[in-house]
């Protein structure tokens, strides 16, 4: 259970979060929709604690993330993971080292036992197989395409089986087939780990595919939150536009 209460954050003169409230149930996949630049990614960074709000609180399973810093924070977020928009792979390491990074740093997330080299290799191979990047172990991130980078980052994330997964625009910039593959992976990971997922996106198809509930981020707040069917019927200009996208021939947008 993640409880966000009255979250405010300002960058310079721009009020990015303005009293945002949100509850996320354990085990659900919540999709946060919103236009670019409304602060969806900022919200994710607040949930995982690496950005601090001006005021407001976030509780994750009863732990107040907003009050923690340093070692305490790193301990509290050990079972959380985030997929970054650009992948954020470490360019000084190859794909294998990237994927295994968490495990080499912390060992097994549950027992803390360190992995042997063989076990690491197997785990990495399995994770890379899941995202369809078999045999890329020794490639450096700079040699990967954008879509491959995102998938490698996803492998790095699912490798350590976090209980709360945050996805920052997982399908943006991918071709439709890869995007659908990523959507499938999100659902699969969710089921397998019985995890809580928060997906931030502006891709309505992806949102409808993965989301148990949909929320609209607007003017620094969550404007609406509902199950997909109810959500799509809400009377709002953005949602009306989304409705139009999925139900109309794109040519009909031409004037």
């Amino acid at each position, binding site marked *: 259970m993640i409880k966000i209460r009255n979250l405010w954050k300002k*960058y*310079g*003169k721009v009020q990015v979060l303005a009293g945002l409230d949100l509850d996320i149930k354990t085990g659900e996949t919540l999709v946060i929709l919103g236009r670019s630049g409304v602060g969806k990614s900022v919200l994710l960074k607040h949930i995982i604690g*690496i950005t601090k709000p001006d005021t407001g609180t976030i509780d994750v399973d009863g732990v107040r993330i907003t009050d923690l810093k340093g070692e305490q924070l790193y301990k509290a977020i*050990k079972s959380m993971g985030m997929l*970054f928009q*650009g992948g954020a792979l*470490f360019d000084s390491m190859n794909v294998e080292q990237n994927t295994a990074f968490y495990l080499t740093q*912390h060992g097994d997330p549950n027992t803390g036992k360190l992995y042997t080299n063989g076990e690491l290799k197997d785990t990495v191979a399995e994770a890379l197989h899941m995202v369809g990047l078999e045999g890329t172990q020794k490639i450096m991130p700079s040699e990967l395409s954008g879509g491959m980078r995102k998938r490698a980052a996803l492998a790095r994330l699912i490798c350590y089986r976090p209980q709360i997964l945050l996805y920052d625009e997982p399908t943006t910039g991918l071709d439709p087939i890869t995007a659908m593959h990523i959507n499938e992976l999100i659902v699969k990971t969710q089921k397998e780990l019985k995890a809580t997922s928060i997906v931030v996106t502006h891709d309505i198809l992806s949102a409808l595919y993965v989301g148990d509930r949909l929320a609209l981020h607007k003017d620094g707040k969550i404007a609406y939150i509902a199950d997909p069917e109810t959500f799509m019927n809400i009377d709002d200009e953005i949602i009306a536009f989304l409705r139009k996208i999925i139900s109309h021939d794109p040519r009909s947008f031409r004037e």
Partner: protein
Amino acid sequence: MKDIIPPNGSGNGAISSNKNNGAPALKGTPIPFLSNGVLRSLHFIIATGEYLVLIIDTIKATLRKPPALNLILKQLYDIGVASLPVVAITGFFTGLVLAAQSFYQLADKGLSSVTGLMVAKAMMTELGPVLTAFMVTGRVGAAMCAELGSMRVTEQVDALQTMSVDPVRYLVAPRVLAGTFMMPFLTIFSIVMGIFGGYLISVFFFGMSPNAYFDPMPTHIQLFDVFIGVVKGFVFGVFIMTISCYKGMNTTGGAEGVGKNTTNSVVITYCCILLGNFFLTVGLNTIRDQISRFL
């Protein structure tokens, strides 16, 4: 730092990072009573505070749980071993020209016998540490700042944090530890190369006897001269590593920001080295005087 608001109207672009805020920044209430100069000094004070916090965090992180040995070893190699050629060349040629110039200036006054001593003293107390620090700033500090900066702007530092890895322990501490450890050694190496360079030109070009070059050294060079060089090397090492890391870790504004911050970090480091060198020269020699008074 982003929160500092440039004065509107009279303002001529107080702090460059603010220009990214674009139109919304111009709409709010301006702070007319704060002049450019005041804002700049505020900015400076905040940055200095953040810099000191980074140093304290580095010490804390190191003491709580030292960074992994392989990370430190890699930095020791990158900073120390890989810098040897450039430091050697710098030291060698400095010693060379120092000896040559001294010889030309002193020979007609009959003072050429002090050439070796002059080279050794100058290299040990001033030129060795300062020039080594300059070369390391350019070679290591700039690269470090650019690397950390691009890691920051591509969210790799954030990614580290989301994986419960403290960036200060993982990225900053190994660099600071390795750099401050290596700088005294690099300084000594450059001093040795300088004296060697001076020797070569004095003996083989000016025809001095090797004895004449080295003879005055044991009598006139004290352990304290070496000590000055080592202390300066250490302090400059602290400056180079901490400033580069601070500037790198606080990079914003994409590729342009990386370039800007790297340039900034090199300029600031140079200034700190020069200023610090002045205070160290005066301070250390005062200490030497005090010691010799007691002995």
